[in-house]
């Protein structure tokens, strides 16, 4: 599979979205709404759930399953209030010493007048800053598309994993081809060059784990993810200082060594 095939797989209509993942991995998912400042973003879902009987906070970007639902969910592109809701739930998790699990599937943060007016950049920036020192374990999993800052705002984590066919990129291959080469036909090359597949990102040290999809049913994939999450949480450092130090070092080593 080339990079563009992966992009298409990540975007495939029949690919399960976050709510399906949640239903299979967790029990007693109890959704909590709103950012307490402006409204409730339906692309960003969050709440409490049990992972193998351990209470966790789950935050996820939901794209929607059919046309009507996709419109309702803004196609998985969150507004500032979505990122602020996510941060509110993370702070709540910190207070009650619950781990945070983020499931990411978005083409990017919502792009439009209202999102700009309400501070899309500020909302994402605040998440990046606050997540870095959150005193509870944070695990983020890219389950489909990981579009730029809108995905990163849920991925300042202790570990970041990707499903085999998920992608994670600074810009979409379409955006890259049109901005850099002003040539829409170069999308496939852009996908290749951006190094956005799980395999590429593992090699670059940007993710810790790939969850295989080939020759597996979705039930098996969900089960595998559940087992991995459970075991990673069991091994997570207990001391907040150690958690934060490791999280900081994880990002600190990415790029820019002296030459």
């Amino acid at each position, binding site marked *: 599979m080339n990079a563009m095939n992966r992009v298409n797989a990540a975007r495939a209509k029949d690919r399960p979205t976050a709510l399906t993942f949640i239903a299979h991995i967790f029990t007693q998912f109890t959704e909590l709404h709103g950012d307490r400042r402006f409204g409730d973003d339906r692309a960003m879902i969050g709440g409490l759930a049990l992972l193998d009987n351990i209470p966790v906070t789950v935050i996820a970007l939901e794209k929607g399953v059919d046309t009507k639902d996709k419109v309702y969910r803004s196609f998985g592109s969150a507004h500032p209030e979505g990122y602020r809701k996510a941060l509110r739930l993370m702070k709540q998790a910190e207070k009650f010493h619950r781990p945070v699990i983020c499931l990411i599937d978005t083409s990017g*943060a919502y*792009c*439009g*007048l209202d*999102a*700009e*007016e*309400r*501070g*899309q*950049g*500020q909302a*994402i*920036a*605040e998440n*990046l*800053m*606050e997540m*870095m*020192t959150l005193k509870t374990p944070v695990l983020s999993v890219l389950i489909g598309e990981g579009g*730029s*800052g809108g995905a*990163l*705002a849920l*991925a*300042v984590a202790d570990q970041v994993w990707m499903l085999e066919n998920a992608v*994670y*990129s*600074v*810009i979409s291959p379409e955006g*890259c081809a049109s*901005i*850099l080469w002003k040539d829409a036909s170069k999308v496939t090359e852009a996908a290749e*060059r*951006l*190094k*956005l597949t799980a395999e590429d*990102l593992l090699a*670059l040290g*940007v993710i810790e784990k790939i969850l295989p999809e080939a020759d597996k049913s979705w039930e098996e994939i969900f089960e595998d993810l559940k087992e991995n999450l459970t075991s990673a949480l069991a091994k997570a450092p207990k001391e907040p200082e150690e958690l934060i130090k490791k*999280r*900081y070092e994880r*990002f*600190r080593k*990415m*790029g*820019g*060594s*002296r*030459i």
Partner: protein
Amino acid sequence: MLKKGLFKKPNNRLEGAEANKTPKVPVQMMLHCPSCKTMLLEVDLDENCFVCKNCGHHLKIGARKRITLLTDTDSFSELFADLSSVNILDFPEYDKKLEKARTESGETEGVLCGTAAIGGMDCAIFAMEPSFMMGSMGTVVGEKITSLFEFATANALPVIGFTVSGGARMQEGILSLMQMAKVSGAVKLHSDAGYLYITVLTDPTTGGVTASFAMEGDILLAEPHALIGFAGPRVIEQTIRQKLPAGFQRSEFLLEKGFVDAIVPRTQQQAYLAQLLRMHRKEHAL
């Protein structure tokens, strides 16, 4: 009969030998204001911090010029100048673009970092360079700013940052995206240690820089009429298929919506920053 000397040039003092003594103004030392087209001399511009005296337009200036204009004379001392980008992902044309950016900007990367004094008070300072691939953030820009915050935390210094950026640097793919998290982490540790961070948003500040350290200051200042946003105006127009209202995403709009603390013209920034630094001096703390 023709009067003698009728066709002889009059001895006007604006002409002739005396006039020729005045030095000619080389073309590069004068320019037209991009906004009102008034002709401006570079010597005057320097005095007025590259703000048009006629219309108040803030002209684009390089990072080194900006730091020189806004900090105490000869107080700037550069840090991390040994860092320079390589084509880590072997991205087509990137080497050439880097070379071109170095020539055009005279800088090795898209941000200039160091220490300086403003009104006699020491600070760590960074200014992004608009002529270096539009101030785009790659791994070296991220590394330099992260290192500056770590340096400031270790040396108990406030940080003043001038942003100008088109966003993340596509040619470095996901690694440029990761810089947003990396820098934000260093900003957070500096903040948690109790130190001041002031950002001055200049035209344009967009994309991944807006969605990270540009918006993370304790105090956010903006130059008048600067474009500040997450998504660029062209991208939004293409997405919503309509023209954006006048003034959308400009400093004045952000002030109205509550996303900047104040709009400060460049000519007043040095005094303004000095005042803020003074009010944050340790001896004033309870």
